[in-house]
Every structure is written in structure tokens, then in C-alpha cells.
């Protein structure tokens, strides 16, 4: 049995990557039953620090004290043996196996796997913490939130009593986030320790006991949650005061730049994902798409970008019908697209920053002349984007995979916004961004709007939608429930529509 972690301390942790000092003399500590939140801007070194604790990286200096004794953690296996579990932002489950099989994967020493006792133990764990999940379900059938629960069960099954979660709510629906937070509360009440990384300050405020703030790899504050406030934390992180963006000026939309008429399309599992969606986005308008993700958002973005076939309906872009256009033509017609999946669609992780910045324009002037790439132009363009968008990277040649999550997102934003599109589809663009970057993105979207770009903003954050959008459409089971002007929108109305209830929402 794993020993209980009464007290864990990381002392003087320093970690250097080529060209970056990712952690510099960092100290953190946590006690049994405590929830510690780690805050910091994109690239501040949060993930690095946790990877060190989980044995994925070796620190250049510093030590880890467990119950007062120094330990050295050289691999996740050793971390698990000490009772430390981690849920990464990108899950590591095998979709074709069941929940139970995924949980015991890699554990059994003997050849024969005792599924029955394993199922039994999983049931015990799920009962203890109120984790609703069926051990016999296949992972591919599960929603993102459920998959995350499987990751948590995996850690608990291995005896973890210190759980690390790296931006666990970034990919969850608001409802799922609430459930997760409740679950984490339960777990800490039962004597488990939790370290959580998050950019969402209200979650940090409601869940954590203590907050450690990192800035540029150094601890800049370590405070009790009770003694601080959301604004104070924001200021500590960014080092200045934040002013939330607001829409300005009157709403005076121009001609339609993107129009969908009765669009039908199938999802990946072969069922209808969009059933008769009609929308119009005009010059200088931000149209929000609200809704619980999984109600057709992904498919909506993909049909517009030409990456998914429509089974019925018509789309026109910039005055031309684009229903049957290739993705290349659609890009040429002026569509910008910030996709949801930044690692598999939006960027190529093994490529350098500059290579990712020219992904859509590599074939045209000024980046290519005749048949050859114009490296000098590309480099100066890239370095100006890196500077303008505050992408934290040692060099332009750095592979994108070694950037922090938020900085990868910035690479995509930089590329898509500077292409000055006619219409811009942004799917969950602020996921994983720190509050400073979120504010910056918001200002960029508003700037795009005042430059006459039509923006389709898909988001689950109602506050974000209500502060940026001119109109909000609610998507439910592949249909637009209603399009309402932002003046008439409030959380209650949107919430009802998102649940598929139209009558009372007027």
C-alpha cells in the first residue's frame, strides 16, 4: 500500500530548456487534504514544474521532500509508487478499450487479467467519490468530461493520494466543470491532496485553499485563497491591472459575408450533426455560437471551412457560393479559421514556429517566389508576429511542440488574424489562454470587427459571448434554437435555450 502523503515540498527547483529558464528556484508545498492552485501566464512554467513532480523531467537543481524525507522521482512509475497521480491536459486513453481495461492497462504483472476484481475495485472508487461512470463502456463512446474521469480513476486505482490536474477544465463544458469541481472537493474532504493548474480564476477562488503564482518561472506570490480576491490574483499574474474588453461603438453591420442556408451535415459517427442550420454573418459583426459543446459546433466550423461535406443546404462566402469549394478556394475567398484542435489541425507540432506561421501562405508572395520559399521574408515576418503576439519562444526554429499550451494557441491566432480574412471562424479561441492573452485576443476580435471582418465566435463561456458579440445564436442538437441580439441575452435565457427549451426563453 502506498504511504499517505502528509506533506510534500518542492524546494529550489530550477529547470532549464535550451534558451529558456522554465523554473527558477521554485518552492511549493502542500499538506494532506489541501487544494493548491498554481497560477501563471502562458509559459510561466506551471506544466514544467508539475512534470518534474511527476517524474517526467529531471530538475537541474532542487529537491523534493515527501513527509520531510528527500525523494527522487525519476519516472511517472516512481511518482505513482509514492502516491502521486497526474491528469494531463491531453488524455492518454486507448479509445478501443473499455474503461476498466484502460484503468488496469500496464498494471497486471501476470499474464491473466482479472477483470472482475478490477471492475469491483473501480466500482468502489466511483462509489466513494461519486464518480458516475460505467466500467464496461468503451472509451470512444465517452464525452470529454467522462474521459477525464477515467483518467482520475486511473490515478486513484493506482493508489494516488496527491492528484495533479493540468488545466482540467479547459476542455470541459460549464456543467462538466462544475461536476469536476464538486468531485475534487469531495476528494480533498476525504484527505487527498490536489494540485490544480487553471486560468479560470473563479474556479481557483471557489476550489483552492492556497494559491501559488508563477511569473517567468519564479514564484511571485503564495497566498491563502481566503485572503485574496480574483482581481488581486489577476494583477499578481500579469503584473498590471486588467480592464475587461467591451464592445464599443454602435452596431452597424454591412453586407453579409458568410451565409448558411438550411445546412445539414453528418458527424463522425454517422449521425446527423447539423440539421438545418441557417445563419448570416455580416461585415463588422461578431456572431456568437452558444451551446454545450458536442451539439454541432465542431461540424459547423468544419463545413464552413470546407473540411466536411454538407448533405444538404448552401453556404456562401463573400458573395460567392462556397458549398462545393475546396478548402484552398475557401481560404482564397477570405476565410480565416481558428480550429478547436490546435495540436492535430491548427499546427504541426514537429514543425518550427516559422513553418507553422506560413502554413496557409507558403505558396504565395511574398513568402514564395517562383518555386522557392523566401526565407528572409518569412523570417522577418515571423519574428514580427512573435513579438506582436507575445509568443514566448527562444528562437524561430524552436519546434512548436516545445511551446507552452497557451503559446501554441498564440501561434495560430497570429497566423489567422494577420491574414486579414473577410470572415473569421474562431472555435473556442481562448481555451488555454491566460487572462492577459484572453484580454488581448478579445481586443483583437473587436479590432477585426471594427475593420469590417465578420466573426463567428464559438464559445462556451457565456460571459465572453455577452461581452463581445452583437448577436448570439444558440446551438442545440444541430439546430439553431434562436438568434438573439446581445441586449436581450442573459444567462437565464441562454441557459434555457442551451438546454433545448425554447418556449420559456422569450
Amino acid at each position, binding site marked *: 500500500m502506498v504511504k499517505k502523503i502528509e506533506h510534500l515540498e518542492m524546494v529550489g527547483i530550477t529547470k532549464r530548456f*535550451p534558451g529558456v529558464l522554465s523554473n527558477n528556484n521554485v518552492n511549493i508545498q502542500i499538506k494532506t487534504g489541501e487544494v493548491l492552485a498554481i497560477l501563471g501566464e502562458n509559459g510561466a512554467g506551471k506544466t514544467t514544474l508539475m512534470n518534474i513532480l511527476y517524474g517526467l523531467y529531471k530538475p537541474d537543481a532542487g529537491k523534493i521532500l515527501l513527509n520531510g524525507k528527500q525523494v*527522487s*522521482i525519476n519516472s511517472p512509475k*516512481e511518482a505513482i509508487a509514492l502516491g502521486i497521480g497526474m491528469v494531463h491536459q491531453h488524455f492518454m486513453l486507448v479509445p478501443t478499450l473499455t474503461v476498466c481495461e484502460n484503468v488496469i492497462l500496464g498494471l497486471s504483472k501476470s499474464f491473466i487479467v482479472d477483470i472482475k476484481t478490477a471492475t469491483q475495485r473501480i466500482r468502489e472508487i466511483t462509489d466513494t467519490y461519486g464518480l458516475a461512470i460505467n466500467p464496461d463502456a468503451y472509451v470512444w463512446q465517452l464525452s470529454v468530461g467522462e474521459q477525464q474521469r477515467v483518467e482520475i480513476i486511473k490515478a486513484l486505482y493506482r493508489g494516488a493520494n496527491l492528484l495533479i490536474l493540468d488545466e482540467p477544465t479547459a476542455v470541459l463544458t460549464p456543467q462538466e466543470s462544475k461536476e469536476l469541481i464538486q468531485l475534487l472537493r469531495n476528494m480533498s474532504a476525504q484527505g487527498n491532496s490536489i494540485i490544480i493548474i487553471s486560468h479560470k480564476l473563479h474556479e481557483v477562488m471557489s476550489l483552492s485553499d492556497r494559491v501559488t503564482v508563477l511569473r517567468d518561472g519564479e514564484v511571485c506570490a503564495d497566498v491563502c485563497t481566503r485572503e485574496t480576491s480574483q482581481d488581486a490574483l489577476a494583477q499578481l499574474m500579469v503584473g498590471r491591472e486588467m480592464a475587461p474588453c467591451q464592445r464599443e461603438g454602435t452596431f452597424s453591420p454591412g453586407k453579409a459575408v458568410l451565409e448558411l442556408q438550411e445546412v445539414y451535415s453528418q458527424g463522425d459517427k454517422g449521425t446527423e450533426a447539423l440539421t438545418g442550420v441557417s445563419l448570416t454573418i455580416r461585415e463588422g459583426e461578431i456572431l456568437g455560437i452558444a451551446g454545450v459543446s458536442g451539439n454541432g459546433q465542431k461540424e459547423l466550423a468544419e463545413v464552413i471551412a470546407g473540411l466536411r461535406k454538407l448533405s444538404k443546404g448552401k453556404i456562401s462566402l463573400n458573395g460567392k457560393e462556397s458549398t462545393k469549394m475546396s*478548402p484552398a478556394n475557401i481560404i482564397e475567398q477570405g476565410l480565416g479559421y481558428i480550429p478547436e484542435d490546435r495540436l492535430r489541425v491548427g499546427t504541426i507540432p*514537429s514543425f518550427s514556429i516559422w513553418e507553422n506561421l506560413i502554413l496557409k501562405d507558403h505558396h504565395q508572395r511574398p513568402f514564395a517566389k517562383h*518555386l*522557392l*520559399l523566401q526565407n528572409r521574408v518569412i523570417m522577418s515576418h515571423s519574428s514580427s508576429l512573435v513579438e506582436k503576439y507575445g509568443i514566448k519562444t527562444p528562437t524561430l526554429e524552436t519546434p512548436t511542440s*516545445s511551446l507552452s499550451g497557451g503559446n501554441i494557441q498564440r501561434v495560430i491566432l497570429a497566423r489567422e488574424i494577420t491574414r486579414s480574412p473577410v470572415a473569421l471562424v474562431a472555435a473556442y479561441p481562448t481555451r488555454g489562454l491566460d487572462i492577459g492573452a484572453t484580454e488581448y485576443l478579445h481586443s483583437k476580435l473587436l479590432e477585426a470587427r471594427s475593420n469590417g471582418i465578420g466573426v463567428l465566435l464559438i464559445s462556451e463561456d457565456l460571459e465572453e459571448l455577452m461581452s463581445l458579440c452583437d448577436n448570439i445564436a444558440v446551438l442545440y442538437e444541430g439546430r439553431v434554437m434562436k438568434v438573439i441580439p446581445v441586449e436581450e441575452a442573459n444567462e437565464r435565457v441562454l441557459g434555457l435555450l442551451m438546454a433545448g427549451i425554447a418556449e420559456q426563453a422569450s
Partner: protein
Amino acid sequence: MERHSYKLEKRLTPSPVMVFIIPIISVLLALILGGIFLSMTGREPLAVYTIMFTDSLGSKYGLTETIVKAIPLALTALGVSLAFKMKLWNIGAEGQFYMGAMGASWLPLTFPTLPVYVMIPGMVVLGMTAGGLWALLTAIPRAIWKVNEIITTLMLNYIAILWVDYLVFGPWRDPLGSNFPITAAFSDAARLPGLGDSRIHSGLFFALAIAVILAIVFKYSRWGYSINVIGSSERAASYAGMNIKRNILLVMFLSGAISGLAGMAEVSGIIGKLQHGISPGYGYTAIIVAWLSKLNPLAILIVSVLFGALQVGGYAAQIEGVPAAVATMLQGMILFFVLGGEIFTNYRVRRVSRKGEESK
């Protein structure tokens, strides 16, 4: 007593030193292992190696033969490397080589009197087209239905080889010759000129030119960039508006065309006619060469010479009563060690004591 265990830690960037040293160590290890094998069969490994390498590299004649073998190896390896760059696993270079040889042979066999300035360019075009179309046969189902190209390219090898056999045993057999499965000899106009009076032919320049072109394409061209994107992530490529299908067709065609050119150079530069068994497996060895060279066109040129030498050495060993398969065995072992050794370019070994304290 402290007990130690070893642990692999991923390097952030591949070690440049290792990239260079691993192939050298691999060759040495392959030679040692091959030597053990040889001595187990009752031969003197050193003597065999001495013969192999003095014959292939130690004399003007040996060097010439090594280069002669390196030309088709380099060309076919360049061909497959182009497809590999896009993660299209074209292992059909052998068949494309045969079809290229056939396409090129058709011209001098049908119009033996054409002048040289029509004949050679004509043969180049026909050879490349035939090899390219042969590869295209697998690219079309791959592009449209995602049919696995490993299987189809491999299968087409056998068809191509047997097809050429059919021709030289049947319709194309030299009526004036005896019963050998060979066509009539090409006219002089259909022979690639040699370097001086050696057997090294101007196919060498084909290989050099294509290596340089591919090096530029991979590193500096916008098309090379697209190939890289498609090879790395098809989803990102279609997001960026790249035409994946068209590129699959184009890359496969060109990959086959380069191997077809190798076949043309072989019949026109060396053999002077079409016959049974024109390749001792160049198209397969090419896969190893391309892989060992990490798809770097200029490295392919060097590795081809090494493998050409192995082949020539193998023949020399045969004369001494050792099967020529020794060369093939060594090739396989080199590949084995290089692939195994790759772990050291990407990982570093650390010694950790039981208590977990690190020691350097």
C-alpha cells in the same frame, strides 16, 4: 553495496554527435557479427572481408564496379525517398525499375535506326513515364480509397518482373539470337556514353542531378514544404488547403519515374539490351539506403557507394567460395544496428542508484 539501474531519458533535440557516430558504429558491429557468423561456418572472417573490400574499393576496376552498382542504387533510393518524405511507403522501386527498363527498351527495339539525339532523350522520357505510370497504379487507389500502398507496390513488383520475363522469353526475344531470354542488342545510338572507356556511364550524372534537385526541393521549395506538411499531418494539410490527393498522385508518379530512370540507365548504360534478371534487387536495397540516409539526398549518394561496394565485395567473396549472400546479410545487419542505435540519438542513458540518487 549500492545497486544501480539504468534509465533512458529523452533528449530535447537529437544529438548531432550520435547522428554521425551511430552509422559508423553500426557498420562495425555488423562486420563483427557477420564475422562471428562467418567463422561459425568455418571461414576466416578477416580474409573474407579483406577480399571483399580490396576487390570493391582497392583497385581501379573494383572502384569502377562499385560506382556502376551505386548508380542504380542511388537513383532508386532517391525515388523512394521522395515518397517516404510524404510517408507514402513505396516499396515498389524494383518493379518501377523493371518497367522503366522496359519502357526505355521499347524505343531502340522498335526504331533501331533513330539518331542518338532522339534516341537517348526518348528513352529517358519513356523509361520515366513507364516507371511513373506503374507507381501511379498504386497511387490512384491510395488517393481515392486509402488502399494501403505497401501491399500494392510490393505486389506490382512481381507483376513487373514477370512481365519483363514474358517479353524477353516471348515477343521481344531476339529472333537471331539463340534461345536465351534476351532482346536484340541496342544500336550504339541507344547506349549512354561512358566516362572515358570505363563501364561508368552517364547515368552517374542523372543520379547527381536528381540528388541536387531533391535536396533543393526538400529544403527550399514551397512544394517540398507541402510534402513535409502532408507527410506530418494530413489533417493539418487539408486545413491549410493543400490538395492531398493530387500530391499523392504527383509524388508517387515522380517517385516511380526516378526508379524508372534507374532502369533506363541500367539497360542503356550497362547491359545494352533487355533481359531476364536485370536487377539483383536494387529496388529493395534502395529502401535500406534511403532509410540509412535519413532521406537526405546527398547522404543517399554516399551510402549508395558503400552498398555498391558491399555488393561488389559479395561477388568477389563468391569467387572465393563464400556465398554472395554475405553482402545481403551485412546489409541487413547494418540496417538492424542503425535502427537499434537510433535510440541513442533521441535518448540518453542515465545511471540511477537504487535510492534514486543520480550519478553521472
